[in-house]
């Protein structure tokens, strides 16, 4: 009887989630367990995720990985898992509950704050900055936006945030949004793209409008790496999505063996730019 561990994630199509999946698959190979990975189309579809969670539970898994879109909404099902003695490992962002045995996560707020510091440094701590964020209501969207904005407000009084707009992570929409922001703010000095699609959108917009601004991105992917290499993008924050996926499955396996786990497994985040992109430690957490 093979050990089955389903991972119910926040998304599935985006490269970030594909990288998480890749890590989970790697761990599955290493620990000889079977994993599946799925997530709803958009991070707004809280109820769809809950349906996925209940289908996952119906399969009588050994353990469960779960990245909650809205942690409160999932509690009844998590209680069910607890009652059935299925250990739950939270990943990506935490669940407001003590049910999960551990949480493998990135501190998105702190990561975005780091992005803000880098941005401030690169534009000389004053001037206009704008944000293209992927989502207005999802946890990651809110955390990255607020992490960035809060740091700017608290530490860099001369930096003015002129616009925050949301493109759903869609590259084309994000491009159009970034272009409009550039058009509306002729003195804009920098722009932060809060996930891969948003960051690429900002890069595209800068290219198309031939404007020189400081671009700070988030996550990785081939286009972002290229943009950093050719200087269009100053740098970006990367999490360790592969690590998140790997650690989640690993933690689940350990929990099944009855090992004790730390409350939080911080998978970390890194700033990368032209200077350290080739660094093996960084390269290991970047995905194409």
């Amino acid at each position, binding site marked *: 009887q093979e050990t089955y561990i389903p991972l119910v994630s926040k998304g599935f199509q985006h490269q970030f989630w594909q990288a998480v999946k890749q890590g989970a698959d790697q761990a599955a190979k290493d620990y000889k367990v079977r994993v599946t990975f799925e997530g709803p189309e958009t991070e707004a579809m809280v109820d769809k995720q*809950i349906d996925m969670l209940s289908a996952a539970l*119906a399969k009588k898994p050994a353990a469960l990985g779960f990245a909650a879109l809205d942690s*409160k909404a999932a509690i009844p099902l998590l209680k069910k898992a607890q009652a059935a003695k299925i250990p739950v490992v939270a990943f990506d962002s935490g669940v407001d509950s003590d049910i999960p045995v551990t949480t493998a996560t990135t501190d998105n707020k702190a990561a975005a704050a780091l992005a803000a510091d880098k941005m401030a440094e690169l534009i000389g701590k004053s001037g206009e900055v704008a944000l293209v964020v992927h989502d207005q*209501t999802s946890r990651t969207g809110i955390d990255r936006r607020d992490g960035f904005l809060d740091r700017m407000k608290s530490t860099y009084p001369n930096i003015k945030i002129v616009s925050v707009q949301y493109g759903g992570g869609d590259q084309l929409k994000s491009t159009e949004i970034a272009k409009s922001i550039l058009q509306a703010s002729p003195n804009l000095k920098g722009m932060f793209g809060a996930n891969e699609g948003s960051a690429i959108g900002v890069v595209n917009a800068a290219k198309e409008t031939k404007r020189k601004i400081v671009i700070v991105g988030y996550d990785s992917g081939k286009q972002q790496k290229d943009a950093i290499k050719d200087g269009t993008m100053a740098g970006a924050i990367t999490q360790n999505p592969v690590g998140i996926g790997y650690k989640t499955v690993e933690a689940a396996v350990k929990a099944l063996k009855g090992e004790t786990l730390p409350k939080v497994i911080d998978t970390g985040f890194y700033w990368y730019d032209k200077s350290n992109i080739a660094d093996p430690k960084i390269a290991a957490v970047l995905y194409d």
Partner: protein
Amino acid sequence: MADHTAATPSTTTASPTGIAARLFRPATRQKLLAFASLLVLMIFFSFASSNFMQTDNMVAILQATAVNGVLAIACTFVIVTGGIDLSVGTMMTFCAVMAGVVLTYWGLPLPLGIVASIFFGALCGFTSGVLIAKLKVPPFIATLGMMMLLKGLSLVISGTKPIYFNDTPGFTYISQESLIGELIPALPIPNAVLILFNVAIVASIVLNKSVLGRYTFALGSNEEAVRLSGVNVDFWKIVVYSVSGAICGIAGLLIASRLNSAQPALGQGYELDAIAAVVIGGTSLSGGTGTIIGTIIGAFIMSVLTNGLRIMSVAQEWQTVVTGVIIILAVYMDILRRRKQ
């Protein structure tokens, strides 16, 4: 163009008495056959995975159908008139948010929240109805505009944050608890499902036995003829959209209670699922025909499919492919069945 083969539910033919006689009438056999696709799917999944045909999973499927089912019922009314409603998803969310405002922001008692949700649904439906009937804006555009308007308003009103119902203790009861389960512990069917079936029964009665239902079919069949018969077409159209809106309000309560929160960003995209359920259920988008039972079957086909593929652990990208193919096949089977008739 008139669709000569389509059967209206409202004209069940001469009723022989006796339940047995009724069950074996061709018309009834016809209706039972409509379950065929659903049964085929369920049988297939039972063989494909032993985890499928289990109480828990059946309950999960029922639960998963509740919201889409109620939305699909709302759509059925509009579609039978020959219209379309793209706003059902975001309208549901808007109603949930309004319930949140009443219950959580204002701290009013639960019944008021329920009334508010249904009232705001009816109000939104009323507005769409006025746009369509009085200003002659095509339903597609009126409800598309409504969809965006309500999506925006939900975000504005909620401050782009979910509104939680933690301070309204009975709220989760609406959807999550199980009245049936309390009586028959072996059947923990959540209240959401009970509500779905109640809405379906009431909607079915309204559609088949009430004046409103009659005009709903008549409008979809030949609006001009209805107008020339001296009926106040505009009024009835507005009523239909309002009723549909009120039903969306119920869906709003269901989803809010299920998630114990009003999620302001949710809802867009749900209209396609609802309309798909209606059309899979044999209702024609050109209006004049349609049954609530068909719609419910359509909604179940969709959720059984989704659930079954997940239980089989089919890769998600393939799930999408298979769902697309099965939806087409289910409708094609239904067409073949009707053609034979």
